[in-house]
């Protein structure tokens, strides 16, 4: 699995490729910590190139969402149907600090709208 931290507009964006499992989720955790250190209200995580996730990765996302409370949201971009199903099973989709975006364009538009609103 590969991870890169960039940004989309002002928002830190973590991009991941491959399988997120118990042996690889540490790098997502590190990237998330790095993104949070920027002090940004929101953090984006692009999962469109992620083929697999298990409880190792889901734990990191749940922790991320918890850290976003009273601060903003963790926005996940483009998970495939299987990954999305797992996000739903662990309750992430209904968490107020979690947002799901179809693609980067949608995420970008939503976050800009939030700033100008």
């Amino acid at each position: 699995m590969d991870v890169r931290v960039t940004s989309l507009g002002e928002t830190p964006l973590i991009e991941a490729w491959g399988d997120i499992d118990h042996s690889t989720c540490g790098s997502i955790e590190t990237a998330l910590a790095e993104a949070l250190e920027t002090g940004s209200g929101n953090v984006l995580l692009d999962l469109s190139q992620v083929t697999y996730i298990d409880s190792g990765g889901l734990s990191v996302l749940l922790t991320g969402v918890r850290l976003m409370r009273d601060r903003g949201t963790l926005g996940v971009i483009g998970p495939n149907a299987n990954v999305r199903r797992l996000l739903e099973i662990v309750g992430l989709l209904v968490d107020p600090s979690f947002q799901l975006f179809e693609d980067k364009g949608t995420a970008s538009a939503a976050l800009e709208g939030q700033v100008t609103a």
Partner: protein
Amino acid sequence: MIPTDDLRPLDDLRSADDLTFHRVIRVEAETARLAEIRRFVEEAAGEAALDLERIFDCKVAVSEACANAVEHAGGHSLPLEISARLQARRLTFVVTDNGPFRRLTPAREDARNRGLGMPLMVALMDEVSFARAPGGGTTVSLSVLLDRIAVQPV
């Protein structure tokens, strides 16, 4: 190549519905082996003609059982055995570790979202069972019923 036991010889007269196999891999209980275990599961589930969604579910469920065993091994290189059996339209994965029996109590689930594994296994599989293995380890059985009618979650 993943070392697997050979397929049992199939009777040519059998229809695909009677397909039967039993194969086993043995690896050390380390998270680094999870990708290899997923490939084993993917091959077996694919051969049982499960659709891609159910293949994915099997990969996650078996990984969860293995991850529990790895956590339980606590850094010791304990052997982990994963078997896949297709028989009577039922595909069953059995994960057996050789550590002392793991007590499945809430105390084990700390604040770091651990304990996600078991709810995932239950959500993704048709049947899940835990047992004490004869040698003192723990056995987790995860089954998919091939003829079960899919029920959409409400």
